[in-house]
């Protein structure tokens, strides 16, 4: 199929069943090259499960996953990451007892090919410092290079996580709620960071904050009860009465408009 060329990632009839419960129901995603693509939907819609399937933290019950037209359904998590599909996590995923610099170095190290060399001096990794500092600089963490991560404020941890993910030079960046639990100021910073990070790559993000989605995303897929409800750009999706319905529970007369949905802690 020549059409599939422009899609970085595709899922075909992706299904995940847990015992007696269908968490992801026949999902067909098509992520275009260069897009920032949002996956939204109410709690329990299966957004994070889709992420876990894409990165093989969960094994799909049925269906296929294609990355640049290549079937990666059978690949393992680590191999997918090295192919260029790198994810972040809902809970900030950092190595708490390493410094910010060391966090980034671990990501850079995975391309070095000496990670099994238990007889080599760790000083060999110092050559990664320069690139690591560049990445820290890009997210505004230069001052904290030598700070143990556990001591960083929440927003900075998320920035560090993003920098670590970027260190993998991903072609496709999967961000699981990058602004979760943040105040407005941090949210705006993350929006800028994601926008910068998205240059030259494709981003798929789960996001609750529809303000963020409206600012950032080229395309939106709405999930509800594990299935795709609708897809389109922000105007199309936000005008869709069914979307308002799943967000509001009943029909769309509530005063909490879809655009002001709160971030959840």
């Amino acid at each position, binding site marked *: 199929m020549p059409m599939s060329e422009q899609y970085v990632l595709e899922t075909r009839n992706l299904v995940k069943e847990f015992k007696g419960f269908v968490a992801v129901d026949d999902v067909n995603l098509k992520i275009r090259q260069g897009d920032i693509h949002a996956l939204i939907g109410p709690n329990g819609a299966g957004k994070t499960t889709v992420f876990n399937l894409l990165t093989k933290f969960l094994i799909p019950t049925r269906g296929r996953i294609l990355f640049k037209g290549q079937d990666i359904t059978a690949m393992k998590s*680590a191999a997918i990451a090295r192919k260029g599909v790198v994810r972040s996590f809902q809970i900030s995923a950092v190595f708490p007892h390493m410094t910010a610099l060391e966090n980034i170095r671990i990501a850079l190290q995975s391309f070095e090919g000496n*990670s099994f060399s238990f*007889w080599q001096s760790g000083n060999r990794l110092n050559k990664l410092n320069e690139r690591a500092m560049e990445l820290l600089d890009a997210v505004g963490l230069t001052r904290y290079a030598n700070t143990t991560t556990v001591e960083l404020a929440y927003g900075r941890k998320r920035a560090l996580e993003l920098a670590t993910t970027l260190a993998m030079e991903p072609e496709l960046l999967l961000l699981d709620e990058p602004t979760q639990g943040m105040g407005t100021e941090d949210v705006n910073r993350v929006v800028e960071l994601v926008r910068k990070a998205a240059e030259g790559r494709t981003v798929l993000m789960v996001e609750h904050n529809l303000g963020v989605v409206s600012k950032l995303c080229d395309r939106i897929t709405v999930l509800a009860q594990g299935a795709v409800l609708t897809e389109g750009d922000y105007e199309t999706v936000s005008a869709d009465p069914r979307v308002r319905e799943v967000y509001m529970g009943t029909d769309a007369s509530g005063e909490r408009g879809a655009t002001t949905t709160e971030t959840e802690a």
Partner: protein
Amino acid sequence: MNETVKQTDIQKAILEQQQSEHRKKMILNGVLLVLLLVAPLVMYPVFLMKILCFALFAVAFNLLLGYTGLLSFGHAAFLATGGYTTGYLLSNVPGLSTELGILAGTLMATVLGFGFALLSIRRQGIYFAMVTLALAQLVFFFFVQSSFTGGEDGMQGIPRGELFGLIDLNDNLNLYYFILVVFLACYLLVQRTVGSPFGQVLNAIKQNEPRAISLGYNVNRYKILAFVISAALAGLAGSMKSVVFQLASLNDAHWHTSGEVILMTLVGGAGTLLGPVVGATFVVNVEYQLAQGPLRDWVDPILGGIFVLTVIAFRSGIVGEIQKFMRKNLS
């Protein structure tokens, strides 16, 4: 422009800090080395060798618990396999020089460790501990049933033999310095491993395994290698122990021994290099002192009490707490 200047400054500061920490460590290690060299002149060498063997056992165990985050409850199997293999060969192969017997015991434990790792590494947390315990119990059962181990009596009268066919190891001082050299080499190997690129990955796995996976690391392979190195060193400790005491007994294979090495590591400080050495020294001494006195029937409850106290109040262990104190007050 300013930012780049700052970057190099910070990098320089980091390197300097690494160097100064390195220097402090070298001084401490030098002092300890001198102590270890003169110790047999004032203390009974066999007792010191017992401490060194258990210290190596705990150092090996700590590579998993302290640096990879894996709690193995089956390390007695490696200690015993090393001991029995070396004991059997030295007793039954005439003219075999001691170091080859020890090497064979170590290899046997290494192979066994690889088997254990393949069967257990996919399990997490308590399930991993239980699988290693179950496998170690199978090994224990094998040793109980086999005639070559001497059953409850143990394998007795293992000849110490000669090192490289030259140096008589029946001389306690000769044996002590041989064991000291092996111990130091292993300690340095673990130190190197922990600081190596491989050690960095282990550290990452310990702190956040899903994240390590998402950064492209096939974590099970790293865990398997760590497990095999740990099993090899534990086997080496057992091999040397059987030469020191000229005895390999079922005690070494018993789950009680697996528990004891956990105790040594936690009391001394898991995740510190010196911790398991201090912990082993402490536990062996407490056992010895108590066995001499009126409290000889209370060894286990007292050690149990120490264990509880450590877990509740001194979670970083002796060395860990000292490090914390120094960092707080001297930096």
